């Protein structure tokens, strides 16, 4: 919208109202997580805590293995993120710079994988992982997600936007594909790789159904599933539940704060503009 034609005060009022609506659940979480148990049980619900009270966080860590959940989610999300960057950048290099028979066919095959909904392959995948005895293991949570068509497209698009002359010159000088890939293409594509990294990390951090199916032992649960334990253990202490929620939110909030810019730019450059 061409907002420059509207009075500034109007825009700011609208933005503040919008922010309040979007932020309210998060501010409520923050505020309640600092309350004492008595305070959080009062009706009408107080909006702000009387005093900042950090003991809830310690109590949550004592009650449920929050740190184990965060650790599991970190291991899984980082492993998948790195794996996807490796597999997608290799495949993207082949599609962008190499000539080989079957290229069109394989590329269509990659495209087609984006059309397969997770639900359709979930049951056989569960059975596969179960037969491999991978239930309750990191490999069961990680390996099925190590390759991504979306990431391959995103990086291929990034690679094709790099100046071709540079690589041609390098090739003439006798620089092999491996060196061109490692010492030129990858370093020049860091913004695109960062986009894929942030996107993939957030996606995997937020994964719900697969870890629910494939993990049973508490020690292997990830954040999204573990959070449900608070519901049963401390159903009446909202301050504790919301402290736990806040603890589990922190890593992804931090990553979004760091990664928002490449994410917006990357989606513009890679996925939407034709």
């Amino acid at each position: 919208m061409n907002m420059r034609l509207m009075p500034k005060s109007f825009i700011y009022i609208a933005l503040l109202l919008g922010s309040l609506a979007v932020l309210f659940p998060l501010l409520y979480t923050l505020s309640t997580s600092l309350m004492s148990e008595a305070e959080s049980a009062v009706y009408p619900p107080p909006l702000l805590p009387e005093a900042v009270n950090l003991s809830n966080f310690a109590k949550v860590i004592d009650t449920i293995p929050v740190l184990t959940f965060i650790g599991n989610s970190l291991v899984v999300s980082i492993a998948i993120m790195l794996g996807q960057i490796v597999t997608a950048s290799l495949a993207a290099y082949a599609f962008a710079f190499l000539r080989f028979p079957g290229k069109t066919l394989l590329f269509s095959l990659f495209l087609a994988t984006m059309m397969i909904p997770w639900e359709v392959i979930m049951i056989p995948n569960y059975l596969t992982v179960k037969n491999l005895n991978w239930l309750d293991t990191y490999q069961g949570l990680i390996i099925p997600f190590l390759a991504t068509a979306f990431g391959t497209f995103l990086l291929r698009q990034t690679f094709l936007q790099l100046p071709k002359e540079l690589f041609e010159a390098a090739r003439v000088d006798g620089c092999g594909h491996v060196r061109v890939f490692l010492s030129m293409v990858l370093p020049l594509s860091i913004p695109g790789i960062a986009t894929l990294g942030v996107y993939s990390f957030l996606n995997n951090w937020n994964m719900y159904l697969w870890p629910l199916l494939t993990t049973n032992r508490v020690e292997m649960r990830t954040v999204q599933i573990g959070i449900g334990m608070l519901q049963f253990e401390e159903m009446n202490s909202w301050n504790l539940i919301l402290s736990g929620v806040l603890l589990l939110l922190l890593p992804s909030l931090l990553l979004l704060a760091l990664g928002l810019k490449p994410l917006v730019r990357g989606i513009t450059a890679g996925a939407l503009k034709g």
Partner: protein
Amino acid sequence: MMMEKEFTLPSPGHSLSPNVNEPEVSTAAKPVSIKRTRRREILLAYACLAPSLLIFGLFLFYPLLKSVYLSLFLTDPQGRVAEFVGFDNFREILASDMFYTSFGNTLLFIVLTVPTGMAAAILLAALTHNKLKGMKIFRFIFSLPMAVSVGTGSMIWMILYHPTLGILNYFLTLLGTQPVQWLTDPKWAMISVALMTVWMNLGFNYILMLSGMQGVSEDIYDSTKIDGSGPLRTFFRITMPLISPTLFFTSVVSVIGAFQAFGQINILTKGGPMNSTNVMVFNIYQDAFVNFRFGIGSAQALILFAIILLLTVFQFKFVEKKVHYQ
């Protein structure tokens, strides 16, 4: 499809191999080494694709075929095939009321979440797409829900929705309205789940819309300003058509995403009350992983796949015609 449009294969000119321009073959000076370079390039290409193809093969293509296979069988609780039943699983599903209930619920969920989610994202993106002070902060705020996952988001909203002590009902009483049984009243449960979903999806939708608007050239706005076009007119006549590829992309992604909603329903309502939030994926989950009827579950998943595919094809065939590509 939009993705295909831009992901078309590169012309051979993109290739880095030194023998792009074929005549080398006729020079005949070093035909063997050229052949070897060529072969090495092909080998390298397959080696680069191998890891992705291996994973896709094991966890995408094989299970896709296995799903079709399972859907024709009855299985024991271990997932082992017990008896070939042909299309009986499909017949049973199509004859059950639960299937139509969950299908109807899924459509209702889409209608409740997709248009509202997109409208809210467009409005906020339009408000922050200007060069006033403090926009960076607002952009961060509106992207924040993207970091909130379905697990944590559902827990927060469960507490907000608490029937007697929840703050949403407290606000309603302040306004003089009757409190609402958000998650336990069959009339309200789906609306509540949808409201939470719209909030949770807002971050990603907002980022998509903002990216789309940032892709529109500034010159266009400058010229409309000179022509004396008002903000609303400019928005509907200029901005909306120019970001229509983004709108289209977002609508496709949102509809597919809505079909796949599961976490918030599992945490907030478990499909209840009275099956009012029992959507298709939840139903598949129940059949396959609670009742261990993997055959029925696979058949349902394939029906869901067919519905999503048809709808996506429909979107591309009819809606995309109205999309304006620059």
